[in-house]
Protein backbone atom coordinates (compact mmCIF):
# COMPACT_ATOMS: atom_id res chain seq x y z
CA UNK A 1 0.00 0.00 0.00
CA UNK A 2 1.59 3.28 -1.11
CA UNK A 3 0.79 6.17 1.18
CA UNK A 4 1.62 9.85 1.27
CA UNK A 5 2.80 11.40 4.54
CA UNK A 6 2.87 15.19 4.87
CA UNK A 7 6.08 16.56 6.35
CA UNK A 8 5.73 19.06 9.20
CA UNK A 9 2.53 17.47 10.56
CA UNK A 10 2.15 15.36 13.71
CA UNK A 11 0.41 11.98 13.60
CA UNK A 12 -1.46 9.69 16.00
CA UNK A 13 -1.46 5.88 16.02
CA UNK A 14 -5.14 6.05 14.98
CA UNK A 15 -4.03 7.89 11.80
CA UNK A 16 -5.17 11.42 12.55
CA UNK A 17 -2.86 14.33 11.74
CA UNK A 18 -2.38 17.73 13.40
CA UNK A 19 -0.88 20.80 11.76
CA UNK A 20 0.18 23.20 14.51
CA UNK A 21 -0.10 26.96 14.07
CA UNK A 22 0.74 28.70 17.36
CA UNK A 23 -1.89 27.69 19.92
CA UNK A 24 -4.18 26.22 17.27
CA UNK A 25 -4.11 22.97 15.36
CA UNK A 26 -5.88 21.90 12.19
CA UNK A 27 -6.86 18.24 12.27
CA UNK A 28 -7.63 15.60 9.66
CA UNK A 29 -7.02 11.96 8.80
CA UNK A 30 -3.99 10.57 7.01
CA UNK A 31 -3.72 9.13 3.53
CA UNK A 32 -3.40 5.67 5.12
CA UNK A 33 -6.73 6.19 6.94
CA UNK A 34 -8.64 7.50 3.92
CA UNK A 35 -7.42 4.61 1.80
CA UNK A 36 -8.53 2.12 4.45
CA UNK A 37 -11.94 3.78 4.84
CA UNK A 38 -12.72 3.92 1.12
CA UNK A 39 -15.23 6.36 -0.42
CA UNK A 40 -16.27 8.75 2.33
CA UNK A 41 -19.96 9.64 2.20
CA UNK A 42 -20.54 11.65 5.37
CA UNK A 43 -18.67 13.50 8.11
CA UNK A 44 -20.60 14.32 11.28
CA UNK A 45 -20.09 18.03 12.00
CA UNK A 46 -17.81 18.41 15.03
CA UNK A 47 -19.53 20.75 17.43
CA UNK A 48 -17.84 24.14 17.82
CA UNK A 49 -17.07 24.96 21.45
CA UNK A 50 -16.95 21.32 22.49
CA UNK A 51 -13.79 20.43 24.39
CA UNK A 52 -12.00 17.21 23.61
CA UNK A 53 -9.20 15.32 25.32
CA UNK A 54 -6.23 13.90 23.51
CA UNK A 55 -7.11 10.52 21.91
CA UNK A 56 -10.79 10.76 22.86
CA UNK A 57 -13.65 10.65 20.35
CA UNK A 58 -13.75 13.76 18.15
CA UNK A 59 -16.41 12.98 15.53
CA UNK A 60 -17.79 10.27 13.27
CA UNK A 61 -17.33 9.58 9.59
CA UNK A 62 -19.13 7.20 7.23
CA UNK A 63 -17.61 5.38 4.28
CA UNK A 64 -19.24 2.70 2.18
CA UNK A 65 -21.54 1.34 4.95
CA UNK A 66 -19.20 1.74 7.89
CA UNK A 67 -19.48 4.36 10.64
CA UNK A 68 -15.97 5.06 11.93
CA UNK A 69 -14.67 7.00 14.91
CA UNK A 70 -12.21 9.88 14.53
CA UNK A 71 -10.16 10.71 17.63
CA UNK A 72 -8.68 14.03 18.70
CA UNK A 73 -4.87 13.95 18.37
CA UNK A 74 -4.60 16.86 20.85
CA UNK A 75 -6.71 18.30 23.68
CA UNK A 76 -8.59 21.58 23.39
CA UNK A 77 -11.75 23.35 22.30
CA UNK A 78 -13.10 22.90 18.78
CA UNK A 79 -13.10 26.30 17.06
CA UNK A 80 -14.00 25.30 13.51
CA UNK A 81 -15.41 22.47 11.40
CA UNK A 82 -14.72 22.23 7.68
CA UNK A 83 -18.26 22.97 6.47
CA UNK A 84 -17.41 22.11 2.86
CA UNK A 85 -17.36 18.45 3.93
CA UNK A 86 -21.12 18.66 4.39
CA UNK A 87 -21.63 18.79 0.62
CA UNK A 88 -18.32 17.26 -0.44
CA UNK A 89 -17.14 14.59 2.03
CA UNK A 90 -15.09 13.09 -0.82
CA UNK A 91 -12.62 15.97 -0.31
CA UNK A 92 -11.06 13.77 2.36
CA UNK A 93 -10.34 11.11 -0.26
CA UNK A 94 -9.09 13.68 -2.76
CA UNK A 95 -7.03 15.96 -0.50
CA UNK A 96 -6.75 14.53 3.01
CA UNK A 97 -3.93 16.88 4.12
CA UNK A 98 -5.29 20.16 2.70
CA UNK A 99 -8.88 20.69 1.47
CA UNK A 100 -10.14 17.65 3.39
CA UNK A 101 -9.20 18.89 6.86
CA UNK A 102 -11.88 18.17 9.45
CA UNK A 103 -11.66 20.51 12.46
CA UNK A 104 -9.57 23.16 14.17
CA UNK A 105 -8.78 23.10 17.87
CA UNK A 106 -7.61 25.77 20.31
CA UNK A 107 -4.98 23.76 22.15
CA UNK A 108 -5.17 23.44 25.91
CA UNK A 109 -1.73 21.80 26.20
CA UNK A 110 0.59 22.23 23.19
CA UNK A 111 3.18 19.99 24.86
CA UNK A 112 0.95 16.99 24.07
CA UNK A 113 2.67 16.82 20.69
CA UNK A 114 5.26 14.73 22.55
CA UNK A 115 2.68 11.90 22.47
CA UNK A 116 2.41 12.09 18.67
CA UNK A 117 4.68 10.95 15.85
CA UNK A 118 6.65 13.11 13.46
CA UNK A 119 6.18 12.52 9.72
CA UNK A 120 9.30 10.33 9.61
CA UNK A 121 8.14 8.25 12.59
CA UNK A 122 4.63 7.91 11.18
CA UNK A 123 5.96 6.85 7.77
CA UNK A 124 7.79 4.01 9.48
CA UNK A 125 4.82 3.15 11.72
CA UNK A 126 2.22 3.06 8.93
CA UNK A 127 4.56 1.18 6.62
CA UNK A 128 5.02 -1.50 9.28
CA UNK A 129 1.31 -2.15 9.70
CA UNK A 130 0.90 -4.09 6.46
Amino acid at each position, binding site marked *: MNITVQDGYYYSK*EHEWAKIDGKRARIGISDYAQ*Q*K*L*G*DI*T*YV*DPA*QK*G*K*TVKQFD*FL*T*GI*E*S*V*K*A*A*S*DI*YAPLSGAITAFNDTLDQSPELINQSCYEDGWIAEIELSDPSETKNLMTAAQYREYAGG*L*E
Partner: protein
Amino acid sequence: MEPLTVRLVSCAPRSGQENMAIDEYLHSWHMRTNRPFLRIYRWSPPSITMGRYQPVSCLDVDSCRARGVSIIRRITGGGAIYHDREVTYSLACGERDIDGRPLSVVESFEIMNKIIIRLYRMLGLPALFAKDIPACRTGVRRPDFCFSGNEGFDILIHGMKIGGNAQRRSGGSIFQHGTIPLVLDEERIRSCFKIPIDFRNFTTLDRIAGHMINEELVMARLKDAFVISTGWRLKPSELDADEMDHVREIMERRYLNERWNLEGRTEDDEEVPAAMAQ
Protein backbone atom coordinates in the same frame (compact mmCIF):
# COMPACT_ATOMS: atom_id res chain seq x y z
CA MET B 1 -1.53 -21.73 15.59
CA GLU B 2 -4.34 -22.00 18.17
CA PRO B 3 -7.77 -21.24 16.68
CA LEU B 4 -9.26 -17.98 17.86
CA THR B 5 -11.85 -18.49 20.60
CA VAL B 6 -14.97 -16.43 19.96
CA ARG B 7 -17.70 -15.78 22.52
CA LEU B 8 -21.00 -17.02 21.09
CA VAL B 9 -24.17 -15.33 22.32
CA SER B 10 -27.54 -16.62 21.12
CA CYS B 11 -30.61 -14.85 22.41
CA ALA B 12 -34.33 -15.49 22.18
CA PRO B 13 -36.28 -13.02 20.02
CA ARG B 14 -36.21 -9.56 21.63
CA SER B 15 -37.40 -6.04 20.94
CA GLY B 16 -35.33 -3.76 18.74
CA GLN B 17 -34.37 -1.63 21.73
CA GLU B 18 -33.07 -4.66 23.64
CA ASN B 19 -31.29 -6.06 20.60
CA MET B 20 -29.40 -2.85 19.88
CA ALA B 21 -28.57 -2.34 23.57
CA ILE B 22 -27.15 -5.88 23.78
CA ASP B 23 -25.08 -5.27 20.66
CA GLU B 24 -23.75 -2.00 22.03
CA TYR B 25 -22.89 -3.67 25.34
CA LEU B 26 -21.07 -6.51 23.54
CA HIS B 27 -19.23 -3.98 21.37
CA SER B 28 -17.97 -2.21 24.50
CA TRP B 29 -17.12 -5.62 26.05
CA HIS B 30 -15.04 -6.42 22.98
CA MET B 31 -13.31 -3.01 23.09
CA ARG B 32 -12.49 -3.57 26.77
CA THR B 33 -11.32 -7.19 26.55
CA ASN B 34 -10.06 -7.42 22.94
CA ARG B 35 -11.98 -10.69 22.75
CA PRO B 36 -14.14 -11.36 19.70
CA PHE B 37 -17.81 -12.29 19.85
CA LEU B 38 -20.53 -13.56 17.53
CA ARG B 39 -24.16 -13.01 18.41
CA ILE B 40 -27.04 -14.60 16.50
CA TYR B 41 -30.51 -13.32 17.23
CA ARG B 42 -34.07 -12.53 16.15
CA TRP B 43 -36.67 -9.78 16.60
CA SER B 44 -40.07 -9.47 18.24
CA PRO B 45 -41.98 -7.24 17.61
CA PRO B 46 -40.91 -5.90 14.16
CA SER B 47 -38.59 -2.88 14.18
CA ILE B 48 -36.89 -0.53 11.76
CA THR B 49 -33.25 0.29 12.42
CA MET B 50 -31.68 3.44 10.99
CA GLY B 51 -28.03 3.83 10.03
CA ARG B 52 -25.86 5.75 12.51
CA TYR B 53 -25.91 9.01 10.54
CA GLN B 54 -29.07 8.51 8.49
CA PRO B 55 -31.88 11.11 8.67
CA VAL B 56 -35.34 9.69 9.42
CA SER B 57 -36.95 11.80 6.68
CA CYS B 58 -37.49 8.64 4.59
CA LEU B 59 -39.84 7.25 7.25
CA ASP B 60 -43.50 7.87 8.01
CA VAL B 61 -42.89 8.02 11.75
CA ASP B 62 -46.60 8.28 12.65
CA SER B 63 -47.46 5.26 10.54
CA CYS B 64 -44.64 3.25 12.13
CA ARG B 65 -45.97 4.10 15.56
CA ALA B 66 -49.57 3.30 14.62
CA ARG B 67 -48.47 -0.12 13.40
CA GLY B 68 -46.32 -0.86 16.45
CA VAL B 69 -43.06 -0.75 14.52
CA SER B 70 -40.28 0.73 16.67
CA ILE B 71 -37.66 3.01 15.13
CA ILE B 72 -34.19 2.45 16.56
CA ARG B 73 -30.84 3.90 15.54
CA ARG B 74 -27.93 1.51 15.10
CA ILE B 75 -24.29 2.24 15.89
CA THR B 76 -23.37 0.95 12.43
CA GLY B 77 -23.52 2.82 9.12
CA GLY B 78 -25.70 2.18 6.06
CA GLY B 79 -29.42 2.62 5.43
CA ALA B 80 -32.70 1.64 7.09
CA ILE B 81 -33.59 -2.01 7.58
CA TYR B 82 -36.99 -3.48 8.41
CA HIS B 83 -36.52 -6.39 10.83
CA ASP B 84 -39.24 -8.98 11.30
CA ARG B 85 -38.87 -12.68 10.47
CA GLU B 86 -35.15 -12.83 9.95
CA VAL B 87 -31.93 -14.08 11.47
CA THR B 88 -29.51 -11.33 12.44
CA TYR B 89 -25.90 -11.52 13.48
CA SER B 90 -23.47 -9.11 15.09
CA LEU B 91 -19.77 -9.77 15.27
CA ALA B 92 -16.78 -7.88 16.62
CA CYS B 93 -13.11 -8.73 16.24
CA GLY B 94 -9.77 -7.00 15.91
CA GLU B 95 -8.71 -5.67 12.51
CA ARG B 96 -6.00 -8.35 12.40
CA ASP B 97 -8.07 -11.28 13.68
CA ILE B 98 -9.30 -12.30 10.23
CA ASP B 99 -6.31 -11.99 7.93
CA GLY B 100 -3.37 -11.06 10.19
CA ARG B 101 -3.22 -7.49 8.85
CA PRO B 102 -5.41 -4.38 9.23
CA LEU B 103 -8.23 -4.76 6.71
CA SER B 104 -9.75 -1.86 4.84
CA VAL B 105 -13.51 -1.41 5.12
CA VAL B 106 -14.10 -2.92 1.70
CA GLU B 107 -11.72 -5.85 2.31
CA SER B 108 -13.39 -6.69 5.61
CA PHE B 109 -16.90 -6.54 4.14
CA GLU B 110 -15.79 -8.86 1.39
CA ILE B 111 -14.26 -11.41 3.77
CA MET B 112 -17.16 -11.31 6.24
CA ASN B 113 -19.79 -11.45 3.52
CA LYS B 114 -18.08 -14.48 1.96
CA ILE B 115 -19.10 -16.26 5.16
CA ILE B 116 -22.72 -15.30 4.50
CA ILE B 117 -22.42 -16.46 0.88
CA ARG B 118 -21.23 -19.81 2.27
CA LEU B 119 -24.33 -19.91 4.48
CA TYR B 120 -26.65 -19.38 1.52
CA ARG B 121 -24.83 -22.04 -0.49
CA MET B 122 -25.13 -24.46 2.44
CA LEU B 123 -28.88 -23.84 2.15
CA GLY B 124 -28.67 -24.72 -1.55
CA LEU B 125 -28.99 -21.17 -2.86
CA PRO B 126 -26.66 -19.77 -5.58
CA ALA B 127 -25.50 -16.59 -3.82
CA LEU B 128 -22.95 -14.26 -5.46
CA PHE B 129 -21.33 -10.89 -4.79
CA ALA B 130 -22.95 -8.04 -6.74
CA LYS B 131 -19.52 -7.18 -8.18
CA ASP B 132 -19.35 -10.64 -9.80
CA ILE B 133 -22.55 -10.08 -11.77
CA PRO B 134 -21.69 -8.02 -14.89
CA ALA B 135 -25.12 -6.43 -15.37
CA CYS B 136 -25.48 -5.41 -11.73
CA ARG B 137 -25.24 -1.68 -11.02
CA THR B 138 -23.28 -1.06 -7.81
CA GLY B 139 -22.12 1.91 -5.80
CA VAL B 140 -25.42 3.64 -5.01
CA ARG B 141 -24.49 5.83 -2.04
CA ARG B 142 -26.25 4.94 1.19
CA PRO B 143 -29.76 4.22 -0.12
CA ASP B 144 -32.49 5.20 2.34
CA PHE B 145 -33.77 1.60 2.35
CA CYS B 146 -30.77 -0.68 2.67
CA PHE B 147 -32.08 -3.47 0.45
CA SER B 148 -32.61 -1.01 -2.43
CA GLY B 149 -28.92 -0.36 -3.13
CA ASN B 150 -25.98 -2.52 -4.09
CA GLU B 151 -22.37 -2.22 -3.07
CA GLY B 152 -19.93 -4.54 -4.82
CA PHE B 153 -19.74 -6.87 -1.81
CA ASP B 154 -23.50 -7.08 -1.29
CA ILE B 155 -25.01 -10.53 -1.82
CA LEU B 156 -27.41 -11.37 -4.63
CA ILE B 157 -29.38 -14.49 -5.49
CA HIS B 158 -30.85 -14.70 -9.02
CA GLY B 159 -29.95 -11.02 -9.49
CA MET B 160 -31.84 -9.86 -6.38
CA LYS B 161 -30.17 -8.54 -3.24
CA ILE B 162 -30.68 -10.59 -0.11
CA GLY B 163 -30.06 -9.11 3.35
CA GLY B 164 -27.75 -6.28 4.26
CA ASN B 165 -24.58 -5.63 6.23
CA ALA B 166 -23.11 -2.58 7.96
CA GLN B 167 -20.09 -1.84 10.14
CA ARG B 168 -18.78 0.27 12.99
CA ARG B 169 -15.02 0.87 13.08
CA SER B 170 -13.41 2.08 16.28
CA GLY B 171 -9.91 1.89 17.66
CA GLY B 172 -8.64 -1.03 15.58
CA SER B 173 -11.79 -3.13 15.86
CA ILE B 174 -14.43 -4.21 13.36
CA PHE B 175 -18.06 -4.54 14.41
CA GLN B 176 -20.45 -5.86 11.77
CA HIS B 177 -24.22 -6.24 11.69
CA GLY B 178 -25.92 -8.41 9.11
CA THR B 179 -29.40 -9.68 8.32
CA ILE B 180 -30.69 -12.84 6.66
CA PRO B 181 -34.37 -12.14 5.89
CA LEU B 182 -36.78 -15.05 5.77
CA VAL B 183 -39.96 -13.11 4.99
CA LEU B 184 -40.75 -9.43 4.35
CA ASP B 185 -44.20 -7.92 4.84
CA GLU B 186 -44.42 -5.69 1.76
CA GLU B 187 -47.62 -3.91 2.75
CA ARG B 188 -46.28 -3.02 6.19
CA ILE B 189 -42.92 -1.86 4.82
CA ARG B 190 -44.61 0.38 2.22
CA SER B 191 -46.72 1.95 4.95
CA CYS B 192 -43.67 2.73 7.11
CA PHE B 193 -41.59 4.46 4.41
CA LYS B 194 -42.33 7.67 2.52
CA ILE B 195 -40.03 6.67 -0.33
CA PRO B 196 -40.90 4.32 -3.21
CA ILE B 197 -39.48 0.84 -2.70
CA ASP B 198 -39.17 -1.57 -5.62
CA PHE B 199 -39.62 -5.03 -4.16
CA ARG B 200 -38.41 -6.67 -7.39
CA ASN B 201 -34.83 -5.64 -6.52
CA PHE B 202 -34.43 -7.80 -3.42
CA THR B 203 -35.62 -11.09 -2.05
CA THR B 204 -35.93 -13.29 1.03
CA LEU B 205 -35.07 -16.90 1.85
CA ASP B 206 -38.68 -18.10 1.74
CA ARG B 207 -39.35 -16.41 -1.58
CA ILE B 208 -36.19 -17.70 -3.24
CA ALA B 209 -36.61 -21.23 -1.86
CA GLY B 210 -40.34 -21.34 -2.62
CA HIS B 211 -41.16 -22.66 0.85
CA MET B 212 -40.84 -21.74 4.53
CA ILE B 213 -37.29 -22.13 5.84
CA ASN B 214 -36.86 -22.94 9.49
CA GLU B 215 -35.16 -20.15 11.49
CA GLU B 216 -33.36 -22.65 13.72
CA LEU B 217 -31.84 -24.28 10.65
CA VAL B 218 -30.58 -20.91 9.38
CA MET B 219 -29.07 -20.10 12.78
CA ALA B 220 -27.31 -23.49 12.95
CA ARG B 221 -25.96 -23.16 9.41
CA LEU B 222 -24.78 -19.61 10.14
CA LYS B 223 -22.66 -20.91 13.01
CA ASP B 224 -21.32 -23.68 10.76
CA ALA B 225 -20.47 -21.16 8.03
CA PHE B 226 -18.49 -19.02 10.49
CA VAL B 227 -16.56 -21.99 11.87
CA ILE B 228 -15.76 -23.51 8.46
CA SER B 229 -14.79 -20.15 6.93
CA THR B 230 -12.64 -18.80 9.76
CA GLY B 231 -11.45 -21.81 11.75
CA TRP B 232 -12.65 -19.96 14.85
CA ARG B 233 -13.80 -21.91 17.91
CA LEU B 234 -17.19 -20.72 19.14
CA LYS B 235 -17.61 -20.81 22.90
CA PRO B 236 -21.22 -20.31 24.07
CA SER B 237 -21.42 -17.72 26.84
CA GLU B 238 -24.72 -15.97 27.49
CA LEU B 239 -24.99 -12.57 29.16
CA ASP B 240 -24.99 -12.85 32.96
CA ALA B 241 -27.12 -10.79 35.37
CA ASP B 242 -24.46 -8.11 35.79
CA GLU B 243 -24.09 -7.74 32.06
CA MET B 244 -27.86 -7.50 31.64
CA ASP B 245 -27.84 -4.61 34.12
CA HIS B 246 -25.42 -2.81 31.80
CA VAL B 247 -27.66 -3.64 28.85
CA ARG B 248 -30.68 -2.12 30.63
CA GLU B 249 -28.69 1.03 31.42
CA ILE B 250 -27.66 1.40 27.78
CA MET B 251 -31.24 0.78 26.64
CA GLU B 252 -32.61 3.45 28.98
CA ARG B 253 -30.00 6.00 28.03
CA ARG B 254 -30.00 5.44 24.30
CA TYR B 255 -32.47 3.10 22.62
CA LEU B 256 -35.55 4.18 24.61
CA ASN B 257 -34.53 7.79 23.97
CA GLU B 258 -36.42 9.36 21.06
CA ARG B 259 -33.68 11.91 20.53
CA TRP B 260 -31.13 9.17 19.89
CA ASN B 261 -33.45 7.12 17.70
CA LEU B 262 -34.71 10.03 15.59
CA GLU B 263 -31.75 12.46 15.65
CA GLY B 264 -28.72 10.36 16.56
CA ARG B 265 -27.96 12.35 19.73
CA THR B 266 -28.58 11.93 23.42
CA GLU B 267 -28.39 14.55 26.12
CA ASP B 268 -25.59 12.75 27.92
CA ASP B 269 -24.06 11.03 24.94
CA GLU B 270 -20.33 10.66 25.31
CA GLU B 271 -20.03 11.72 21.68
CA VAL B 272 -21.70 15.12 22.22
CA PRO B 273 -22.00 15.79 25.94
CA ALA B 274 -24.67 18.40 26.62
CA ALA B 275 -22.36 20.41 28.86
CA MET B 276 -19.97 20.85 25.98
CA ALA B 277 -22.59 21.76 23.44
CA GLN B 278 -23.49 25.04 25.16
